[in-house]
């Protein structure tokens, strides 16, 4: 028999959105961040594993990647945290007008970064087919480009949504908040990759 209910508490006054760990999507984003982090960590391990086999790094006869494009990229992505933080704060404050300015700014920054990334590929001084060193360098840069690209597409869609009446729904502001959280992860992961592609071969 199905048991008869004994009514204890009423939850109809609970909110339908909250920021941070109360949000279900916050946990979903965290889950995917861990997945990507594990993939990156293993790619780093593969990099050092292959490096351990070599006498020199880069292997003899090969030049380390040129610094310029990668360094500009690094500066821009670090500076992007400022509008990113503003967007996150605007989301938490429910300030739709500010979000409508800041998300397009983030879209523009992402586009600029993707263009610089094209120059980075051009300044690696190797092709992925050359040897294991070249393969892993290309792999790291490609993985991170995938990271940028997915977050950029996500930001584009979200920015589009922000110009509809739905922007005033609290849950959409939670989306903006979590999109900003993810962007932090994208640039944080870039720092070790930048070091591995550009600085470790110069040590």
């Amino acid at each position, binding site marked *: 028999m*199905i048991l008869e*209910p004994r009514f*204890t508490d009423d939850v109809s006054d609970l909110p*339908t959105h909250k920021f941070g760990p109360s949000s279900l999507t916050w*946990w*979903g984003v965290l889950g995917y961040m861990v997945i990507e982090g594990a993939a990156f960590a293993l*790619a780093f391990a593969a990099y050092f594993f292959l490096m351990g086999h070599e006498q020199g790094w880069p292997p003899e006869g090969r030049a380390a990647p040129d610094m310029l494009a990668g360094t500009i990229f690094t500066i821009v992505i670090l500076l992007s945290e400022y509008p990113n933080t503003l967007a996150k704060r605007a989301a938490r404050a429910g300030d739709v007008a500010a979000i409508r300015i800041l998300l397009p700014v983030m879209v523009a920054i992402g586009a600029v970064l993707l263009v610089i990334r094209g120059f980075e590929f051009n300044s690696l001084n190797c092709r992925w087919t050359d040897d294991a*060193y070249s*393969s892993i360098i290309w792999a790291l840069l490609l993985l991170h480009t995938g990271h940028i690209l997915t977050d950029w597409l996500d930001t584009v869609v979200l920015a589009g*949504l922000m110009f509809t009446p739905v922007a005033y729904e609290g849950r959409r502001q939670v989306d903006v908040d979590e999109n900003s959280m993810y962007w932090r992860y994208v640039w944080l992961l870039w720092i070790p990759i930048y070091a591995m592609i550009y600085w470790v071969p110069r040590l």
Partner: protein
Amino acid sequence: MTDVRADSFDAMPAEERERIRVEEENRRLAQERKKIARDGPKLRGAKLEARLEATWRRPPGIIGWLATVDHKEIGRRYIITALLFLALGGVLALAMRLQLARPDSALIGAERYNQIFTMHGSTMMFLFAVPVMEGVGVYIIPLMLGTRSTAFPRLNAFSYFMYLFGGLLLWVAFVLNIGPDVGWFAYTPLSGPQFSPGKRADIWAQMITFTEVSALAAAVVLVCTILKARAPGMTLARMPLFAWAMLVQAVMIIFAMPAIALCSSMLISDRLIGTNFYNAAEHGDALLWQHLFWFFGHPEVYIIFIPATGFVSMITETFCRRPVFAHAVVVLALISTGILAFGLWVHHMFATGLPRVGYSFYTAASMSVSIPTGLQIFCWLATMWDGRPRFQVPMLYVVGFIITFVIGGLTGVMVAAVPLDLQLHDTYFVVAHFHYVLIGGAVFPLLGVLTYWYPKITGRMMSETLGKITFWLTFIGFHMTFFPMHWSGLLGMPRRVYTYPAGLGLEVPNLISSIGAFVLATAVLLFVLNGLFSLYRGAIATPNPWGASTLEWATSSPPPVYNFAHIPVVESDTPLWDVEGELPVVTGLRVDEKETLLTTVVAATPDVREPIPAASLWPFISAIAVGIVFIASIFSPWALAVGVIPCAIALTAWFWPKELKRHPEPVIS
């Protein structure tokens, strides 16, 4: 008067007008919010159930079938699909046993045999074992936690379709004679471009991509469900052991699967665009493959085994009529097994040559993982000792599990020792060992738990008599098949070789194994027949036919589409044993839109009301788009670049609200 107001409104700056409009909209929505129907003392019983049914029911027909986000439908599909793959993998096993029944057999040639053992291993690991565990989890976990849906139900649907497409890719390729033939672990350089031209190895690697995307999605779904959607009062300390097992398993998937995603992508790029990760001639290393593969591959066996320990705990508790002895120890054992599992991968590589300290470390680590598992076994034995066991079919499988798994565990401790491992590496002794731990450790509990939850899923009981016959045939058939393999392995018979010469003493153990395989296959067939027959003829199941303690038994068998009319409240470790005639519930969730309750992660106090997405075709369409890209990328790297576009469109449509207007309370249309 109104004109004046309208004039001044038009004269205001745009932002001011927008602000006033939004404020008015907010007031209107607040008014509408008061009219929303919610469950409670005034809306209960048949009236409530009819309205919830209308809200939660999926659209009819084939469209609705493809669009459903009901975790019960998806879980059922997962289980049935996985069992079909079990049958296919089992048929391949029978083919191998027929070939090996006699020495110098010419039934199957070497080349075909390579394909068959590759398909058998890949099917069993990627298309049966992991998906079936996730399928059971997806079906049962929301019911056990007292909620109405998994987290991210559309992602859940997507994960099923990805799994299905990956399985179809592998098997259609096999039927077209382009199935893989490089072993289920596809070692480089054998699987690399030099030694495996053609598309066989690519098919294997892309099947991996499908199943890993699917498993990762299901893992995120399960972690979020378990952490955020538990019934109020079900603190982490009170959480049933099966939920703990699925939590640990899902977290393990999240950490392990990226390893195979990475190494199989590197394999594909070595084969397709000429990278050199595994190419020794250009300073790559074939052992990089083994490290990355086993960093996934070893946790993989615990990913399969840990949910099974959850099954064992649930069955033991119910059929011994007392809570599992030392609940906290079992939880800690699960967690420590999950952590230790990531420190053992190198024991698959003892024969590759390692630094001496590596040998010692990984031997010690491999032996130490038997400690938490041993603790769990002692806890189950203590539960039986102290309880009043009823030896019905699910409990018989638990007993069969303990006997078989302990034997497999002991041979595991043996091969953890390097000198013995070097002797037995790649022999049938290892084949015996891992079938003892995988079939004994995972399939026995699975058969038990399918019998146990069958009434919940179908509303009918499986035949007890037929079930007992099936159990004994399974048990005898299993040991008859795999015990002699210890013997043939000690005699030096290597794995993955299509035949053996007469006169080495291998005839008898192989013949016994082959006969046993057919006994085991008969048992599996009986299990399936029992399942089919009982669908129509089984006794009607009550909501709680076994007298169990967990919440999935608080709702009807089979459960309604919305799971629970009111969200239950948990006040003890074994809720259904401790309530006295009435089930405590919370009220106040919406009735005319899909909604469930989120609680806090540790204490499980009510936190947020969460809208649940409506049925949608977009997860299916997204899976097709992603699937086409994956398969096309076997043939051209440009498929990835071009394929981003349809995938982005499908995923955007998945998330984009169908109506760009505000509702009094959020809905996901």
